């Protein structure tokens, strides 16, 4: 099935190539579990592109982060998006970082993306992975230690287990049939609600425990398509200096609070911040809480309507709810 979708993608791209001069997609990395983003600039390279549940990266950040992938005069950039990625695009369009007319959005309804770490944990890590095949929700891995089967559900990224928007919300071409979301919108913040059952003490200890592992590599920030301060992030500014370089929980907490607050009402829950963290800190969870507040106060969900204005980007003294 994924081979067919990949072929369909190639076909679509060959057809639109006269309009576009760059394509943002995914190609195979150093093993079948590891896919990498690729920028394709000529028709002959289209065959490098793949589309399958290992295509974890959200590519939309490349459209805005320096050096941004942009199209030549009169041309468009074709960008491949899953459901969550498409919401990032909407947010970037809302905030005028992107011009909708210069994009050719290729959407694929998403059945969930796979966390390579969970797969490696299941097959044992001392192996070389030769092949990964997905059929009917079952992942079959051929590796140097033999053959292993597992259900896709058991190796999905956390973001995918709580995804209510697997179908692209904005696109020019849609490849494949739409899928049923894993959860309903009303359940989006059940994990937040559950967590809030815990005592303040427990919650505090949880965050101290997980955040104290943060090495301040800032991958969570750099991978976020909506973290647009980029090289001017206050985490590293020296003049004025806001955060010290000390690796203490206080400083780490300040960084993450700032990161989260800058995303309040803008975060589209693509989960990239959490996926890229080398030490497995669930940083999206902080943003989920902010989004839950956002939904409660402003009835607003980020990245759904290109015409809407995110609540914290506007000022309305008569705002209901505050």
């Amino acid at each position, binding site marked *: 099935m994924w081979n067919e979708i990949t072929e369909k993608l190639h076909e679509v791209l060959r057809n639109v190539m006269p309009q576009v001069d760059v394509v943002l997609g995914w190609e195979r990395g150093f093993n079948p579990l590891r896919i990498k983003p690729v920028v394709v600039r000529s028709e002959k390279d289209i065959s490098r592109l793949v589309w399958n549940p290992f295509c974890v990266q959200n590519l939309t950040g490349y459209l805005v982060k320096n050096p941004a992938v942009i199209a030549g005069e009169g041309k468009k950039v074709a960008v491949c998006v899953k459901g969550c990625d498409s919401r990032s695009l909407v947010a970037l369009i809302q905030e005028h970082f992107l011009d909708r007319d210069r994009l050719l959005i290729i959407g694929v309804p998403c059945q969930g993306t796979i966390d390579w770490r*969970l797969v490696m944990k299941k097959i044992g890590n001392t192996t070389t992975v030769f092949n990964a095949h997905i059929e009917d929700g079952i992942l079959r891995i051929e590796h140097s230690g033999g053959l292993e089967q597992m259900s896709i559900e058991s190796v999905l990224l956390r973001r995918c287990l709580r995804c209510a928007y697997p179908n692209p919300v904005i696109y020019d071409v849609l490849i494949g049939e739409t899928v049923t979301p894993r959860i309903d919108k009303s359940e989006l913040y059940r994990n937040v609600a559950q967590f809030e059952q815990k005592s303040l003490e427990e919650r505090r200890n949880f965050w101290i425990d997980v955040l104290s592992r943060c090495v301040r590599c800032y991958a969570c920030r750099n991978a976020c398509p909506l973290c647009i301060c980029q090289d001017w992030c206050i985490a590293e500014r020296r003049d004025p200096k806001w955060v010290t370089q*000390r690796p203490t929980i206080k400083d780490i907490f300040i960084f993450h609070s700032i990161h989260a607050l800058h995303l309040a009402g803008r975060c589209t829950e693509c989960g990239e911040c959490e996926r890229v963290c080398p030490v497995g800190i669930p940083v999206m969870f902080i943003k989920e809480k902010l989004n839950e507040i956002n939904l409660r106060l402003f009835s607003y969900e980020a990245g759904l309507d290109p015409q809407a204005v995110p609540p914290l980007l506007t000022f309305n003294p008569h705002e209901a709810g505050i």
Partner: protein
Amino acid sequence: MTPAKKAKKKIEEKIFIPQEKLNEVLERLSKHFRVWVPVLSSSSNGWTVEFRPFTIESEPFFTRQSTMPPKSVILPQGETLFQYEYVKNSDDPSKQDLILKETINAEKTLVFGARPCDVRGFVICDWVFLRGLYLDVYYKSRRENTLFATLVCQDADDACFCSSVGGGPGDMEGSDIRITSTSEGFVLEGLNDRAKEVISLCECDPPSEEQSRDAQRIQEEAKNRIIGSLDVSGSVEAVKGQFQNMGVWRDIAESCLSCGVCTYVCPTCYCFTITDEIQGLKGERLRSWDSCMFHQYTQEASGHNPRPTKLERYRNRLGHKFCYFPLRYGGVIACCGCGRCIRSCPVSIDIRSAVERVKEVHSNACVCS
């Protein structure tokens, strides 16, 4: 214990720690050393393995390379170089005196369960901190007070390439004790005089003949295994030759996020920044990890940045390891082949294929000219 037996124990250089006795032994060692062991970190997706100081609750985890190397044992993420305080001069109130306080740390330390690549990381860093233009007293004091009990590695995966850069799964360069993990426990062998104290503190029996044989077999296997197939020869000339060819760096690093993951998980990335962290009249000079993948790293006061984009930054990371370092330090490649940067890169950039690509482009260019 009879004195005769005790004397015998003292000269024992090979011992066996049964699996179930490990924590007991480590607890004993902790009374004399700060002992670091790899452990699964709590509440992540059950993947991250880090080195942490041993406590009796620790569950040492030895069947997968750690996510973060033991680099922070010698090069902590943040290290106070000294503390200072401004005080009023009692003779002349218009003047201020500066009081400096030394904070150098030299605790006796044992890293239990590092891998050959992890230790090779320090052997490489030694060139910079101990054998280069400057002697770094902070690094030196930690390094001299730290012993490495290193696992014969049986856990290579498809990102490892230690054999390509002068190491190997059985390589014991820089280690004091060899640990061979067998089905029932661990065979420990002292590799130098420094090891003797640790071995005797373990208070364990020598391995049985069978345990010895087991260990030997595992060591033989490790010695004969070739991990990785990167050919680093010619990397120096290739990087120099292709320095200005931004096309090749774009091919390699266009998808890079310019995050610090690859540098922070790398045992041989030692770059740091120095800041004064001051509050009121008291402060400390702090040395903390920095990354050449960051914009700020080369930002000049004028506003100019000689490495304005991720392409120049990635070129630097690769160039440093495979060109500038060997040029300066007698041909030593500043990479231990641990594969961490490959495994942990959020966009799966592979430094092995990057080196190959630069070499390939360079050799093609050479033919043409």
